[in-house]
């Protein structure tokens, strides 16, 4: 164990000498309070350490002790429903131990080391197992069966394995490796956060992650195992979009990382998620959620670590063959933490003071997403979808973090403040957003929803595109100069925007729309368009068409409950026919 002495302190950066024996990225304990830190640079026997806690009160000569292990997370039963800080300290436990404020030097294990779990062994003594093989399970929540796997790097014959009640540190079994070493197994594994967990093979993503958000599913879908970013200025609804994805996505587990954001937002998730019932399982959403909260007032170095902590936990669940979504809000704050440390290290700055390695670090993070064949002999598949919010200064995405992110991710949901001012939510701009998964996912939609899904989606995009072109003309010469057909296009486009794209996250029924309902809703809007176009051919005036009473019913169609929409939509169609015939 290496022991050194502090010679310099500058904010979260501490330099200690006498550290020649320590390894890069080892975790160290700093000072009398045993603050947690990590070695990020070595010069001779001097180590630069980023400290994950407030450094006030440290002085020259204070002792630094290396733990000889990299920053790691504890992976095992007890993760779900929990809320952790950026270095996986359990915040709820901390509250019980230390009160409402986070004080220095609190040292608590991430998993509850006393809680006993019912372990059911599925492998037997004498079985030959390889890394990643499932040897048993623990029913951690009503929704998630937590599979216990052989840790990466271990294989051999099971010498001993028994079902029973264990805590996460007790020995549940032994594996004898061919080389003669014995490996004791526990319910818990440890894994260094800065290293991606291994898998067998990456697969191209071709199944959509269904979010129940109409603009996303129809126009800019994301694949299971894909990557997406949500940039937007403040007040444009980034966090609501992220919360909606965390609530409604059809994944097995969500890791939500609040990285340098508001404390109250995390509290909101903590209080609200247990109350929301997941439509797919009928259980509380919290049963499938892990929260990482390193709010903006918490130490900046831990913010840097938080996204690695989050994605490592997500990878662990992916390895069980689950589909997992990591939602990070916001990666800009993470990049700023990187910038702050880089500045203190006196590195040569790149663009806007960000370190030159910003792009590669971001790429490393998003590259940990993907659809994979997991380790283990059963060939199970898991997926990790990564979605990051970006908070560009002034909403201008020409800044380095947005640009670096856009080069990596495949889906761009650009939020627009002018839409937000009009209270058009989600404020995703339909003209500049994109999804590069669209072609790849089309076969799935065709097969599973409706064969005209793709055609409909293209039609909607085209209509919105012509609207923006017509709008230019209207601004110059007024709406009267347009032909009745063009005016109908404007009316229908408005209807698409208001009655389809707008979705109220705070409305109980509108918050989530199934793919079938989304499809039926667009079809309904197009039904009106087609009938109205016929009426115009007959000579009906466009003003009359726009004022039909049935349009109010169309406007309310999106808020019809899933159970009733089929009959209600059919009614609306008959009303359209009747009212148009009466004109």
């Amino acid at each position, binding site marked *: 164990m290496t022991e050194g002495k*502090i010679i*310099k*302190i*500058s*904010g979260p950066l501490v330099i200690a000498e006498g550290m020649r024996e320590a390894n890069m990225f080892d975790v160290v304990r700093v000072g009398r309070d045993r603050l947690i830190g990590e070695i990020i640079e070595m010069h001779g026997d001097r180590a630069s350490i980023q400290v994950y806690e*407030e450094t*006030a*009160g*440290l*002085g*020259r*000569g204070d002792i630094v002790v290396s733990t000889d292990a990299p920053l790691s997370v504890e992976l095992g039963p007890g993760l779900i429903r929990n*809320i952790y800080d950026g270095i996986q300290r359990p*915040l*709820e436990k*901390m*509250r019980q131990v230390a*009160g*409402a*404020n986070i*004080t220095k030097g609190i040292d608590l294990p991430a998993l509850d080391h006393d809680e006993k779990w019912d372990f059911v062994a599925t492998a037997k003594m004498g079985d030959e197992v390889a890394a990643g093989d499932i040897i048993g399970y623990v029913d951690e929540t009503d929704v998630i069966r937590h599979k216990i796997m052989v840790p990466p790097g271990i294989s051999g014959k099971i010498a001993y394995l028994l079902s029973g009640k264990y805590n996460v540190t007790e020995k549940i079994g032994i594996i004898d490796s061919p080389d003669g070493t014995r490996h004791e197994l526990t319910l818990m594994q440890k894994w260094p956060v800065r290293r991606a967990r291994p898998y067998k093979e990456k697969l191209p993503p071709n199944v959509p992650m269904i979010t129940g958000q109409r603009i996303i599913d129809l126009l800019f879908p994301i694949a299971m195992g894909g990557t997406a970013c949500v940039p937007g*200025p403040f*007040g444009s609804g980034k966090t609501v979009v992220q919360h909606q994805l965390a609530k409604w996505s059809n994944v097995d587990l969500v890791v939500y990382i609040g990285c*340098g954001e*508001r*404390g*109250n937002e995390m*509290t*909101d998730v*903590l209080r609200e998620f247990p109350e929301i019932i997941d439509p797919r399982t009928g259980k509380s959403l919290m049963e499938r959620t892990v929260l990482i*909260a390193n*709010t*903006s*007032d*918490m130490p900046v170095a831990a913010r840097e670590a938080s996204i690695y902590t989050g994605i490592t936990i997500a990878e662990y669940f992916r390895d069980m063959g689950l589909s997992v979504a990591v939602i990070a809000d916001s990666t800009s704050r993470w990049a*700023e*933490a990187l*910038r*702050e440390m880089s*500045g203190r290290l006196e590195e040569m700055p790149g663009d*806007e*003071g960000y370190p030159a390695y910003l792009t590669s670090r971001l790429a490393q993070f998003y590259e940990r997403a993907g659809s994979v064949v997991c380790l283990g002999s059963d060939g199970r598949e898991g997926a990790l979808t990564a979605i990051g919010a970006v908070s560009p*200064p*002034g909403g201008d995405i020409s800044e380095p973090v947005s640009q670096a992110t856009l080069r990596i991710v495949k889906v761009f949901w650009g939020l627009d*403040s002018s839409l937000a*001012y*009009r*209270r058009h939510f989600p404020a995703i701009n339909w003209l500049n957003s994109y999804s590069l998964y669209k072609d790849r996912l089309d076969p799935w939609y065709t097969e599973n929803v409706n064969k005209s899904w793709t055609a409909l989606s293209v039609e909607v995009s085209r209509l919105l595109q012509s609207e923006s072109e017509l709008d230019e003309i209207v*601004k110059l*010469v*007024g*709406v*009267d100069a347009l032909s009745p057909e063009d005016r109908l296009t404007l009316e229908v486009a408005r209807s698409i925007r*208001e009655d389809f794209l707008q979705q109220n996250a*705070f409305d109980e029924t509108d918050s989530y729309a199934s793919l079938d309902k989304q499809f039926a809703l667009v079809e309904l809007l197009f039904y009106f368009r087609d009938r109205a176009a016929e009426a115009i051919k007959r000579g009906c005036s466009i*003003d009359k068409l*726009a004022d039909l009473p049935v*349009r*109010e019913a169309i*406007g309310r169609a999106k808020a019809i409950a899933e159970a009733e929409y089929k009959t209600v939509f059919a009614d609306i169609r008959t009303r359209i026919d009747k009212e148009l015939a009466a004109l």
Partner: protein
Amino acid sequence: MIREYRTIEEVAGPLMLVRKVDGVKYDELGEIELPSGETRRCRVLEVNGSNVLVQLFESSAGLNLAHSKVRFSGHGVELPVSEDMLGRVFSGMGTPIDGGPKIIPKASLDINGTPINPAARNYPNEFIQTGVSTIDGLNTLVRGQKLPIFSGSGLPHANLAAQIARQASVRSDSTDSKFAVVFAAIGITFEEADFFISDFKRTGAIDRTVLFINLASDPAIERISTPRMALTAAEYLAFECDMHVLVIMTDITNYAEALREVSAARKEVPGRRGYPGYLYTDLATMYERAGRKMGSEGSITMIPILTMPEDDKTHPIPDLTGYITEGQIILSREMFRKGYNPPVDVLPSLSRLKDKGIGEGKTREDHAGTMNQLFSSYARGREAKELMVVLGEAALTPVDRLYAKFSDEFEKRYINQGFNENRSIEETLDLGWELLRILPRSEMKRISPKILDKYWPRDEVQS
């Protein structure tokens, strides 16, 4: 044992280098004794071997390298606190300047505070009635929220802040005796500070107010501590004395400039517009001290005021503030020129916590629907008016003409209520309905049919 050092090596701007010190801690408070016997305060910014870099809180005038002495106190910058602070006036560094006696402290608290554990926060959801329609009706403030006012030079943000401080009340409990205001003046002029003080005196609010005053003429460096002093006092009153504290801080722009001064003196790599890269984190450690905590009855609601240089919302100070706070109230020069007061720019203003603080049992069942409807109708009305400017009224459709009329009336009656009218939430909501009736009922897409039938019966004749 407290050691004295006579080893000051350099003084440059707000920074000072002291050599050959031992046992000095990071972030420790120090005291400099000048040859004249006068003392000034400073804080350790960096420990590097036996050198320490300290930041002065006061001016460096009169400092002498050969004869000045430095002592370090062994603790960080602290503020003595007690309930007796109410009704008192302090300097930006926390010393009483109203001629009254010294505070007999119940505790001495580090002004940097400690982060609140997100698992220990209580979600803010108690409606505060400010009596201002544009806030109550559209951008509802709740207890424990941080809602800044983005203003520009020459706009009446002080009047709005004073109006809120004067009128703010909570409907659920009538015993509002445990309400307090903490006011931090950060580098503002005497006149502006005096406006607040006289307003507090006039309304009698001064007895439940703690004032921290750093005027434009006071040293800029002191400004770095002023808001933290105020927040420390607020935390004590809120979480130890169970009071509901409203913190008003003006002007954050001056604070950020003081921070930039120190950063520039340290030759740090600057971020946007020369502000340090850690401006976000630094502002967050202040703003995030607002809120409610488990195990405490009290709350801190924060209204920071900042002037946007050139009215530019994308300037780093408003921009980063907007990313941390839970919404923003933006003042508009256009409204002010029209003579509409308070000149709130409704469309870009936002309260993120409004949805949790409104509705049945909190305000009224129709609040959410009418709020969304007013917003989108006003936005559409504004668009129609813009079009009207270019093409003339005749180019508008009949519905758009109604929208244009609606937006005019909305500005004239809803926004323009003056600084002295105190509207109850019912009055605000009823006014909203009255204005919405300018539009056809079929346009009320944001309001659920049930609510619409109750507040706007179908059989009623439409214009």
